[in-house]
């Protein structure tokens, strides 16, 4: 028995990679539809915040993620945009991460196709160009945003667009949100939300989600989505099944495998040590 356990503990790690691959691929080929019964309070808080905004309110959405964190953060962005359009909010999409511009183009192409075909560019939403130096942009957004954003992504005059009516700086906006896999959300909280008293929310990767709990406790963040689970929770709340929900099957199976491996390996180690 002891020899067998020792052999199993020295298993080629590539076999574990293979098992993990199979577990993650299986639900993509054949979705299981496992239920999501635990919606995070911070996700619900974000949903309630947007749900409570009157039609015509202005949402500033800073999408500061690149392809490396796309599977976690892109579904979050799509879910929030869908919800905001359903509530007839005006949306301004911007980015302070050069790697995000391609992903924002993708969202820009999807809005008239399947996200919100009835919404008009320039009237209901606008996409701003990438700007370097995040801190300078965030500070300027609190004073006169047209000093730094005089044109939209395609070079059209921003100030004259109907979507920007009554907007001069972040104090005229009802909610700001940053979706990012970097520390950009910290900057938004410090340089915009706190400084100009702007209601702010966030979307982060699962890795950095825990670090934002203090901001939730103090109310500096009105809500937070963390990782693919956060996106799945939000999709459930708005009744739109997208990539976040689809990924939950795979995540659940992979987590069961990890838990099983940890338990089995510990039992084996204890067996070797005490029996």
């Amino acid at each position, binding site marked *: 028995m002891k020899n067998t356990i020792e052999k199993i503990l020295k298993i080629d790690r590539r076999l574990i990679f293979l098992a993990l*691959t199979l577990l993650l691929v299986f639900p*993509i080929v054949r979705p299981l539809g496992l239920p999501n019964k635990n919606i995070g309070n911070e996700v619900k808080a974000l949903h309630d915040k947007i749900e409570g905004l009157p039609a015509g309110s202005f949402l500033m959405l800073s999408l500061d993620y690149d392809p490396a964190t796309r*599977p976690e953060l892109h579904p979050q962005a799509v879910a929030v945009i869908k919800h905001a359009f359903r509530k007839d909010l005006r949306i301004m999409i911007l980015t302070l991460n050069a790697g995000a511009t391609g992903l924002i183009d993708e969202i820009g192409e999807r809005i008239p196709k399947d996200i919100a075909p009835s919404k008009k560019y320039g009237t209901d939403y606008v996409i701003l*160009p990438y700007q370097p130096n995040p801190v300078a942009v965030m500070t300027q957004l609190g004073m006169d945003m047209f000093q730094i954003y005089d044109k939209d992504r395609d070079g059209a005059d921003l100030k004259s667009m109907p979507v920007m009516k009554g907007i001069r700086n972040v104090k005229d906006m009802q909610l700001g949100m940053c979706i990012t896999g970097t520390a950009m959300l910290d900057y938004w909280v410090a340089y915009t939300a706190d400084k100009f008293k702007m209601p702010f929310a966030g979307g982060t990767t699962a890795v950095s989600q825990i670090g934002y709990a*203090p901001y939730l406790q*103090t109310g500096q963040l009105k809500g937070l989505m963390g*990782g*693919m689970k956060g996106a799945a929770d939000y999709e459930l709340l708005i009744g739109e099944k997208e990539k976040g929900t689809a990924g939950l099957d795979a995540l659940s199976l992979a987590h069961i495998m990890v838990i099983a491996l940890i338990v089995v390996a510990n039992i084996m180690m204890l067996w070797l040590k005490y029996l």
Partner: protein
Amino acid sequence: MSETMLIFGGWVAAGLTIFLFSFLYKDNPFFKTAEHLYLGAGMGWVFQTVLFQTWIPKVWDPLTKQGDWTVLVPTVLGLTLVTQFFPRVSWLSRYGFTFIMGYGSGLVIPLTISTDLLKQIGGTMAPFMVSEINRGNIWSLVNGSIIAIGFICVLFYFFFSVEHKGAIKKASNIGIYFLMLYFGAAFGNTVMGRFSLLYGRFDDLYKYSAPKYFYATHVILAALVIYFIVDHFRTRKPAVEEEAA
């Protein structure tokens, strides 16, 4: 985007993903190629984004079309940073760095103290305020107590100027448990995050395995497996040599 470009993009994406994953089996030239391409493509993307979305509309157009010469001030300050590469004039970079340091420090220090220190201390104390206690929200008080105890005990753990013994040692030990809980939660989330990213790539690979993309994933995967088999036999040492070794 044209259909041809879409299919080509699918082949490139599927190929690079599989090439990078192939490292899990063993190092190979395809992995090396993809690794270098990743760095080059990333830098190229940032360069063209900055050029077309920032430099041209913010510097070139105002200068050439509107005759706005004031944009030269930040531009020249920025260019002084590049003089770092030329030792004879590298002293010029000090002006750029001076501006960045002064501007950055003035902006960052007060806001960081306010956001990450004062507001957090306020948040920790808030549940114990008379107005909160009068509301009779027991759970808020319990949560606040746990956070306050954890906060103080962890601070004791990182307080090295007093020998950890007696009551301080007990507080410090409790602090370790709070830290362990934090690390456990953070690690759990990290695992979930990494699986999500892996799932994302597999989801894309599945998409590119469709007939629309001419089975890009299948073809590239099969080609790579054939490469590994051929490489295995090609680099295998002769039996005689193995015995001698």
